């Protein structure tokens, strides 16, 4: 049987991808960010997950303003790096796990989650930056990926509660996949940041850390944080943190924290990273 063995969350700032691609990740600016991922890179080498269910959002790359799926799952064989306006990132293609992805898609639909299914798409920094953070530069990504895209751009975006419940349903779906697979679930985006308007540049170290504390606890209070609280406290793009709740929801009630890292700033954004393991 397939099983979810761990949950990882990380910011996915595009500039982090640039730092990796241009070998600047140990300089004075980026060093303090990347040092917080060293532990995870070592741990991933030991864990050797077969598949990562990677919860992220598309930043107007695969989806334009025309079609806006709330929850979409990539069921394809592979995905290319998107051209976000300055040419595609020089990273390997992302290999999908079509069997598991279709199994999850079908299970979720039967479990009352009306998923959008994607066969072909390019994946942007939201998906490739977390891969670079966890695996560094490589010729070939060491895992297969099931992309799970959440609309966090056009309002209303899904509630935290719905994201958490989706995570719970994903865990049930994975547990019913007959093949023996080591599966991780990653939630990406955040933490506090605002990329627009006169209030741009807002960061909130205190709130972000409170959110990390909530994810570590057995309590599921985080699922009930309303959108307006993310927006007021963590900036308009801080709403991406609802995607971390999909990851947390998939891990069950009790978790053990393996690693935690926080750094301000990276460009406009607060960097947060946490590694959790189900404890039940």
């Amino acid at each position, binding site marked *: 049987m397939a099983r979810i063995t761990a949950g990882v969350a990380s910011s996915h700032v*595009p*500039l982090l991808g640039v730092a990796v691609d241009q070998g600047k990740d140990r300089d004075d600016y980026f060093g303090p960010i990347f040092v917080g991922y060293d532990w995870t890179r070592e741990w991933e080498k030991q864990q050797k997950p077969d598949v990562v269910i990677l919860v992220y959002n598309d*930043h*107007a*790359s695969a989806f*334009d*303003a*025309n079609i806006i799926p709330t929850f979409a799952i990539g069921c394809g064989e592979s995905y290319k790096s*998107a*051209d*976000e*306006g*300055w*040419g595609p990132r020089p990273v390997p293609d992302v290999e999908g796990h079509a069997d598991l992805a279709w199994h999850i898609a079908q299970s979720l639909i039967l479990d009352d989650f009306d998923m959008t299914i994607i066969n072909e798409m390019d994946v942007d920094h939201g998906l490739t930056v977390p891969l670079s953070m966890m695996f560094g530069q490589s010729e070939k990504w060491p895992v297969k990926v099931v992309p799970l895209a959440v609309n966090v*751009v*056009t*309002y*209303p975006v899904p509630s935290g*509660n719905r994201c958490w419940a989706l995570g719970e349903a994903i865990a049930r779906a994975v547990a019913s996949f007959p093949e023996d697979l080591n599966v991780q679930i990653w939630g990406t985006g955040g933490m*506090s940041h*605002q*990329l*627009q*308007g*006169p*209030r*741009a*540049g*807002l*960061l*909130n*170290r205190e*709130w972000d850390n409170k959110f990390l504390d909530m994810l570590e606890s057995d309590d599921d209070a985080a699922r*009930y944080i*309303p*959108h*307006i609280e993310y*927006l*007021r*406290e*963590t900036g*308009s*793009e801080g709403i991406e943190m609802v995607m971390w709740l999909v990851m947390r929801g998939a891990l069950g009630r009790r978790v053990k924290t393996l690693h935690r890292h926080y750094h*301000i*700033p990276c*460009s*406009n954004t*607060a960097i947060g990273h946490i590694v959790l393991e189900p404890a039940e």
Partner: protein
Amino acid sequence: MKQDIHEYLAELEDIPGTRIYTASRARKGYWINQFAMSLMKDDNRKRFKADERVYLDAWKLSEEAKQALLARDYNRLLDLGGNVYFLSKLFSTDGLSFAEAVSTMTDMTFPEYRDMMLKGGRSPVGNRSIKGGY
């Protein structure tokens, strides 16, 4: 726990210096965003750079939107329904970093903005609610 949509939308308008990308903005800015999206193709970026006005004239954009795009007036574009993730294709076409483009929407120069970020960013204090003033 279902929230009333009118209450929900009213709250989204109560954040200082912020335009949440609601359905009404998305409708209004549809062609601004679709235009910006076209800049993901290198060919289109070249055609746009060769003659911005001619390129813009091929899209269903109001004159106001075209002027705002030509002027790179990003706050105006947000008011007209532009979304920053779409507009970022224009930032990169211009060779501007995300942070530099974002700083043009604030009352700071880019060096001032960068400095604020290095010092921990903009505080949420006093920036959370227009009505509440907290």
